[in-house]
């Protein structure tokens, strides 16, 4: 799509505008806090202190961020190819099936550092497989990927309920979850890293999945901006027509992009299962796949931005829990509202403030906005 807007300097494009959008989202969230009769400024202080005030707060923040990095990257990879993968939730959930089977099979025989790679492959494969069918249908039969991935979220939920009340749970138990994994499928914690800085941590679930998430962020950057495949994906995302003229196979690029996206979404399941709960339970994803949409939009689809946005959302989750404790009128659902507002202002309304910013830049230094400035103001 040709952009109807004039160019801004890069720092304004990637720094200023997201910050303005984010600020507006939080101001509106502040009004919601006022609506339930609490002081938004005090709420903000409690939230930040809850997330970063103590060592275990930081560890929890990073633990939540880990999952969101995966889901954010998943959304971003698909988005670079012009596809909206709204199915991260289902792809992550179904990956729990793979993880569950691998862990139950190997946790008594293998050490964690052998189970972990197998589980990574299993989760990525399940996620990729779950994205494959919508991708194939989009590429070959033109079915809208948004609708099919939503449908696959629901199908995944049904499959997982079937598996968890059926063959995955131990026969003696009533609860729809697997038995607790043995040591061979429990990932080591990373809390000692934070303790190096002098903080005390009693128990927090931060684990080596965080490192895996950072590695994946780097690999995604490499893929998108430093490989031929990434170039093809971006080309297709910008203009399917141009890609077709350049001889890029539409089917191939859609399917590959969606499978990578699905694999990343699948890997997000490692963190809560092997890293924290040590089992696969009903609804263990609990919306993290959808948070990825907000994270990816806020991070402007760049891995660095996504890691930062994921940490911000981790902060909201951890701080939000503290907030719900301190202010009974505010429940943890405040985060869901903030998430929605971020998606609205950083995603759907991302161009709302752009004309004003452009006008401002144009009035200070017309040259920084280029010649199209006059046209841009009208848009």
């Amino acid at each position, binding site marked *: 799509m040709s952009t109807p807007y004039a160019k801004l300097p890069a720092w304004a494009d990637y720094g200023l505008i997201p910050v303005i959008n984010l600020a507006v989202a939080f101001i509106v969230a502040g009004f919601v806090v006022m609506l339930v009769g609490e002081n938004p400024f005090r709420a903000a202080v409690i939230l930040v202190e809850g997330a970063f005030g103590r060592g275990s707060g930081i560890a929890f923040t990073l633990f939540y961020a880990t999952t969101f990095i995966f889901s954010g990257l998943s959304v971003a990879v698909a988005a670079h190819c012009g596809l909206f993968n709204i199915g991260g939730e289902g792809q992550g959930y179904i990956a729990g099936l793979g993880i569950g089977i691998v862990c139950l099979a190997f946790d008594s025989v293998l050490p964690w550092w052998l189970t972990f790679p197998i589980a990574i492959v299993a989760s990525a494969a399940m996620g990729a497989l779950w994205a494959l069918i919508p991708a194939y249908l989009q590429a070959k039969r033109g079915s809208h990927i948004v609708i099919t991935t939503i449908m696959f979220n629901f199908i995944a939920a049904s499959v997982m309920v079937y598996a968890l009340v059926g063959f995955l749970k131990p026969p003696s138990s009533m609860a729809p979850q697997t038995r607790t994994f043995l040591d061979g499928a429990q990932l080591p914690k990373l809390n000692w890293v934070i303790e190096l800085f002098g903080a005390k941590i009693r128990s927090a679930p931060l684990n080596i999945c965080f490192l895996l998430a950072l590695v994946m962020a780097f690999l995604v950057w490499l893929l998108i901006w430093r490989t031929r495949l990434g170039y093809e994906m971006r080309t297709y995302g910008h203009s399917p027509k141009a890609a077709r003229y350049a001889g890029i196979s539409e089917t191939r690029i859609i399917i590959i992009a969606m499978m990578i996206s699905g694999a990343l979404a699948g890997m997000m399941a490692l963190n809560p299962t092997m890293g924290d709960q040590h089992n696969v339970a009903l609804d263990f994803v609990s919306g993290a796949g959808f948070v990825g*949409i907000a994270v990816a939009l806020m991070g402007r689809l760049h891995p660095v931005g996504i890691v930062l946005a994921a940490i911000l959302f981790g902060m909201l989750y951890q701080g939000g829990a503290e907030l719900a404790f301190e202010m009974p*009128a505010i429940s943890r659902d405040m985060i869901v509202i903030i998430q929605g*507002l971020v998606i609205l202002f950083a995603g759907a309304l991302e161009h*709302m403030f752009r004309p004003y910013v452009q006008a401002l830049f144009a009035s200070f230094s017309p040259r920084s906005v280029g010649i199209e400035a006059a046209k841009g103001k009208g848009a």
Partner: protein
Amino acid sequence: MDLFNAIIQVLDSTIRLSVPLLLACLAGLYSERAGVFDIGLEGKMLVGAFAGAAAASVFHSALIGLGMAILISVAFAMIHGFASITHRGNQIVSGVAINFIAAGSTIMLGQAWFSQGGRTPALAPGERFEAINWPGAEALRAVPILGPIYAELISGHSILVYLAFLIVPFTWWVLFRTRFGLRLRAVGENPAAVDTAGISVAWLRYRALICTGVLTGIAGAYLSMVQNGGFVKDMTAGKGYIALAALIFAKWKPVNAMFACLLFGFLDALSIRLQGTPLPVIGKVPVQFMQALPYVLTVILLAGFIGKAIPPRAGGVPYVKER
């Protein structure tokens, strides 16, 4: 006779379960026919359900509840319009945002205002829409075959059920027999042509979204004020998405929409009825399979194996006057 009674019961609950789907599906019909994708049906139903139940229990009036449900739902539809029509944002992103805001704010406001864990207070008899018993329903119940059909299936529903089924022919009439409908369909297929004719694309799409908001508001009110005597958190439980599936299944046509929603409602009713009972031939069908069936059917349909579903051509594309 037992089998017959069982069938009547399943069909009766089919009607009850398909009404919210039908209203949401018709809501989606208006906006998608006008070229605006609306993933936010779910969220709008949810805020409608919450606003309806909250207002009904505060003002002790079902009608005020319904009015409030429609008002808030339309307001959310206008947010969608503001983002996707005025600011030409991504319609899907905007819809997702609305679902999130709806899910979070209904629970949080419910908790802050009523402190019952996100529920609204249980509605008293006058605060919800009661079932209407048609004349002679009880007297005719004893008549074989026709009696139970009249007494169970036709009589004994709330006003919103009858309203929902009346909106189907009405929507058909609006879309295919009025000038507004013609323009609305045109704006979903070729907005540039409508623009050339001197009609405002944006205003038409806004009006379509108002229709959407009204219908999702009624759908929400049905959930919280008829089906359930109060609001429960996340009570839409994916119905907005099933409605979207039904809309595709119905190929964006109102009468088809009714049949698609009845089918999905029937599957739902059947899965409740069949829980744990083995079928002849097939044996015991897992409940989860029945629950997943509407989604699987939609995917198969989308894949083009049961006829082709062709969406309105300009769907999802923001209209830019000049390029």
